């Protein structure tokens, strides 16, 4: 039994330095996930502010239509299809598969983040905007200094969830033959014909990634709660 495990372990990870498939794959996974999250946050913020400003105050009618189309298309089509279209059609001339993957996931995640952030903005009492404006602050200044910090605080759990989903969703980049963590495990399986060890190891690594991230997010939430309001601001 123990001997069998040792053999399998040797076959899957040690022989021909096969562990490097997982190690390099993990690097790709992290690269794609982190970059996509960061770019997605930017997209999410901009789209959310456009949508919320339009719904509340009638600003940006044209941009709002664009934003709505973007949200409808992205949320209405499967991620895999978006990835393939990005790779084979939109960014055909881009050589780096990592960059293609980053952009495809950022554009996808931006749509979901936008809706989460918009919900956060809508949850803030209108009196907050009025108080900022009454001090002479411009709409944008009030948005950035008063509304968004509170909105983010309120939707942090939902945003964190979206990041977790994105991190795991990157496991489909094998469709454009980019070797990430999942694909790395798959390659080991195809070379060794053993299924248990490669796939379970890959699953365990994803799990540890997500758990680490969740732990970090929990810390951040507690920190924000300790610095004042975790409430939907009402009558403060």
């Amino acid at each position: 039994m123990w001997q069998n495990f040792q053999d399998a372990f040797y076959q899957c990870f040690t022989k021909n330095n096969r562990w490097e498939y997982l190690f390099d794959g993990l690097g790709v996974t992290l690269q794609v996930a982190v970059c996509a999250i960061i770019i997605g946050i930017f997209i999410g913020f901009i789209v959310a502010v456009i949508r919320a400003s339009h719904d509340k105050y009638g600003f940006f009618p044209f941009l709002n239509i664009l934003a709505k189309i973007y949200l409808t298309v992205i949320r209405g089509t499967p991620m895999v299809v978006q990835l393939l279209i990005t790779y084979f059609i939109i960014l055909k001339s881009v050589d780096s598969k990592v960059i293609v993957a980053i952009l495809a996931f950022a554009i996808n995640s931006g749509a979901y983040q936008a809706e989460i952030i918009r919900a956060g903005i809508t949850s803030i009492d209108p009196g907050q905007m009025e108080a900022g404006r009454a001090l002479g602050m411009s709409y944008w200044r009030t948005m950035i200094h008063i509304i968004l910090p509170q909105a983010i605080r309120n939707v942090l759990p939902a945003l964190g969830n979206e990041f977790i989903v994105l991190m795991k969703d990157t496991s489909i980049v094998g469709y454009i033959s980019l070797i990430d963590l999942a694909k790395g495990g798959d390659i080991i399986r195809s070379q060794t014909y053993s299924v248990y060890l490669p796939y379970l190891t890959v699953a365990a690594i994803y799990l540890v990634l997500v758990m680490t991230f969740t732990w970090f997010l929990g810390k951040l939430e507690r920190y924000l709660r300790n610095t004042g309001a975790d409430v939907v601001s009402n009558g403060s």
Partner: protein
Amino acid sequence: MGKVLLKINNLKKNFGKLQVLKGITTEIDEGEVVVVIGPSGGGKSTFLRCLNLLEKPTDGEIWFEGKEIIHTSEAEKNAVRSEMGMVFQHFNLFPHMTILDNITIGPRLVRHANRAEIEKKAMEVLDFVGLVDKANAYPQQLSGGQKQRVAIVRALAMQPKVMLFDEPTSALDPEMVGEVLELMKKLAKQGMTMVVVTHEMGFAKEVGTRVVFMDGGYLAEENSPAEFFGNPKSPRLKDFLAKVL
């Protein structure tokens, strides 16, 4: 009284088909304390919110220090608002900031005030209103009366030319009304120009230099407090006063 600070000319405001202000014309001089009373739905708050353009008037003119302010650029409107302090019924303090930051954010962002300087000033004013030990607390740690006093200090930090009060004591527990009115009295004594929408008749009598009755979208009657309460003219005001006094 001093020179004219605000001149309101035939001010109208519609919300959809509902006309809330049907043509208000009046003047507010420097140093005046104008108390606006009247039944709910009479347009008191809307009138006040039109003064600093939180509501966009449908028609009419507002002159502030000799300049018409309704038909100006967004930037000029922001500048005008920074010259008018506003205190809200529900305080509207920023819950994610300390009391000190609540007070200093306006001067810092709008006036580009030096942080150390403005914080020193804010501490002095907090000391004046007896809240210096709350400087680093957050709004949710304060009582309603304390919140409203901080809100007043926040508005004052911009060194406004006029202070607008929108039912500042209506959301307070009864025992906290006094401390807020006391602070407003002090302000009035220092010569601050004030427009106060309130149901506190005692405050109107004692502190107001002029009392205005708003009803049905019109400025129905205005007079000195003594005349206003002692010798009301219109039957509508007589009726209103009989109910509230």
